[in-house]
């Protein structure tokens, strides 16, 4: 089926392309009255970034996105009949689905910060800014605007900052990030070798054919749902001191420590994939987008002697060894927060980590599958007792197997390198939908 053209003038920029921002700020909002929420939205809708602006060389230095929880749509007075047409997982919200997602123990919503597990979480404003000064200018401006919108309050906020060097994306453990991202059919973007063909827009935006050439029923009314996407948000604290201690315990030399770090991730910290560089790091390979994704597992590394089957990248993108993988693709946005822990410094117990969104058309089929199966299923791919070493819920009872000749290495009782500090499901509406929400008639009587 030939796909219709993407309505880029009606899609928020958020999932289409990544702006050149070094900082960001997330503000989590609650609406005390529907009218107040709609008034706030009316004033901000013209500032929301539209997909057509991406790559247009406009001299923007900040990019705004707005999304709502299901409770938020209700708080804006979307009627019950319409609310019922949204999928069950979105209606329930991430916190209610913690057991299935595997966010249990220390990762359980009862420990989440910033009011994210509360039904009073209604909306998020995501601000990407070119630099800290611009972010601060926008923060003050939004604070001033909120003071004019009685009944709209900030539950919590999170400031994001990229980690130096700014020549490439990197997270707190030191791994190069953003190496693998699906290309959306119809955007004109080119895939890199080994990344597979572009993915149908219906996998990310509502109202377009998906990889089944099907168009699932849209939540109603269509003006609210068309060109929208679902976002799963996760705030993941990274325990950098703990991670470095672990590497020292399992590697006597720097080289051995780097190899353990690479085996957990599936890539060296430079980004070079173990399948292509199994013995020694190759930073040039890691930085070369024409080469760094150009591999498979089935023919090049079937037993995981290079990249372990339980490593992070092999779980989160099993490539040719996964079934139906085109139906599991997601677009990741977000970045790092908190100050970097200098090399050699002891753990300072300051929170730092990744706060990211995954965008998709079906939370249950894409995000929840990834969390339930790829991340937290101890039996993934015939492993016996393992979870994703970075994103999985670890409590010291799971292992990590590193295939090796002649005898494999099994690390027993992997510690938790991360803790989930918050999460939520949002709906990222199209531009027309934002205007529809802003002008809803009030049926609540407020």
């Amino acid at each position, binding site marked *: 089926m030939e796909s219709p053209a993407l309505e880029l003038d009606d899609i928020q920029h958020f999932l289409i392309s990544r702006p050149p921002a070094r900082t960001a700020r997330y503000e989590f909002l609650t609406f005390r009255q529907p009218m107040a929420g709609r008034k706030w939205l009316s004033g901000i809708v013209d500032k929301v970034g539209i997909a057509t602006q991406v790559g247009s060389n406009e001299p923007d230095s900040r990019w705004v996105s707005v999304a709502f929880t299901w409770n938020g749509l209700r708080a804006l007075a979307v009627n019950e009949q319409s609310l019922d047409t949204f999928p069950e997982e979105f209606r329930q919200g991430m916190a209610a689905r913690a057991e299935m997602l595997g966010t249990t123990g220390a990762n359980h919503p009862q420990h989440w910060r910033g009011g994210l597990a509360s039904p009073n979480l209604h909306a998020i404003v995501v601000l990407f800014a070119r630099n800290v000064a611009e972010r601060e200018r926008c923060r003050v401006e939004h604070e001033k605007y909120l003071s004019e919108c009685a009944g709209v309050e900030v539950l919590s906020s999170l400031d994001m900052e990229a980690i130096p060097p700014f020549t490439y994306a990197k997270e707190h453990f030191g791994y190069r990030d953003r190496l693998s991202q699906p290309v959306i059919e119809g955007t004109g973007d080119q895939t890199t070798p080994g990344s597979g063909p572009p993915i149908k827009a219906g996998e990310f935006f509502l109202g377009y054919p998906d990889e089944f050439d099907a168009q*699932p029923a849209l939540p109603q009314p269509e003006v609210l749902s068309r060109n929208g996407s679902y976002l799963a948000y996760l705030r993941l604290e990274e325990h950098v001191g703990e991670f470095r201690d672990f590497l020292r315990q399992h590697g006597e030399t720097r080289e051995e420590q780097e190899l353990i770090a690479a085996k957990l991730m599936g890539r060296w910290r430079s980004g070079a994939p173990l399948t292509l560089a199994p013995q020694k790091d190759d930073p040039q390979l890691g930085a070369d987008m024409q080469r760094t994704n150009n591999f498979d597992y089935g023919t090049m590394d079937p037993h995981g002697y290079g990249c372990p089957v339980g490593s992070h990248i092999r779980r989160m993108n099993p490539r040719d060894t996964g079934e139906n993988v085109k139906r599991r693709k997601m677009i990741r946005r977000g970045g790092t927060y908190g100050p970097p822990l200098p090399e050699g410094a002891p753990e300072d117990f300051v929170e730092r980590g990744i706060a990211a969104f995954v965008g998709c058309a079906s939370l249950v089929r894409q995000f929840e599958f990834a969390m339930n199966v790829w991340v937290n299923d101890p039996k993934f791919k015939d492993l016996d007792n393992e979870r994703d070493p970075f994103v999985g819920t670890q409590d010291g009872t799971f292992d990590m197997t590193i295939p090796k000749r002649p005898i494999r290495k099994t690390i027993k009782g992997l510690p938790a390198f991360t803790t989930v500090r918050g999460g939520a499901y949002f709906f990222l509406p199209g531009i027309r939908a934002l205007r529809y929400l802003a002008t809803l008639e009030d049926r609540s009587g407020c």
Partner: protein
Amino acid sequence: MATRPLPKEPKSEPKKPQIVEKPRTNDWTKPAAVAIPKEGYFTLEKGRYGPVFPRTPANYGFSVVAKVKPGREQAIRDYGKTIEEAVKGAPHVLAPLQLHYLRWILFDVGSGLHFMYQGIFDTDFDKYIEDAIELFNKTGITTVFTNLEGWPENWRTNVPAVSKFFREHQCPSFLEYGEYPYVSAHEVRKALTLKAAFSNMLDQMQ
């Protein structure tokens, strides 16, 4: 032989559900049997689309029973041949289902013709239901289900409805037994591959 009177059940209190200890040992050398509560699970554990059914000594399984639409018996029997040919042409075509065995049965015990889809597999079906639907699309296996009453018309896009059909038509076992309990198909294949390799090596050493 001395007899003792049966203890009297309290009349006023409703009968509580039986609590059955979920077996924890996965020792394949010891045959194991387990009785399963009526609900089909020991404790309520949520999957993406509904309760997760437990792994037993006979692994995971389905016994889906549904009434056949009038006049569709031959169509169902014909699809037995379809699957035979599909597997002959591509032996690993059903691999995504992580199956040990499939048994398809047609029967009528006086309430109309029914179809039973019995499968033994290695993972709870909730985890891979979308992959199964994709497989149905590719192989035509699904046409068996379209001959059954209650199968959702929009199954291609409505995964929750397909999951609901399976859950509503699943008849949970109340006893499952494994002579070599909890062993996955992957482990069986691995053991047989190893045996074949050893056998080959011994032959060559003679």
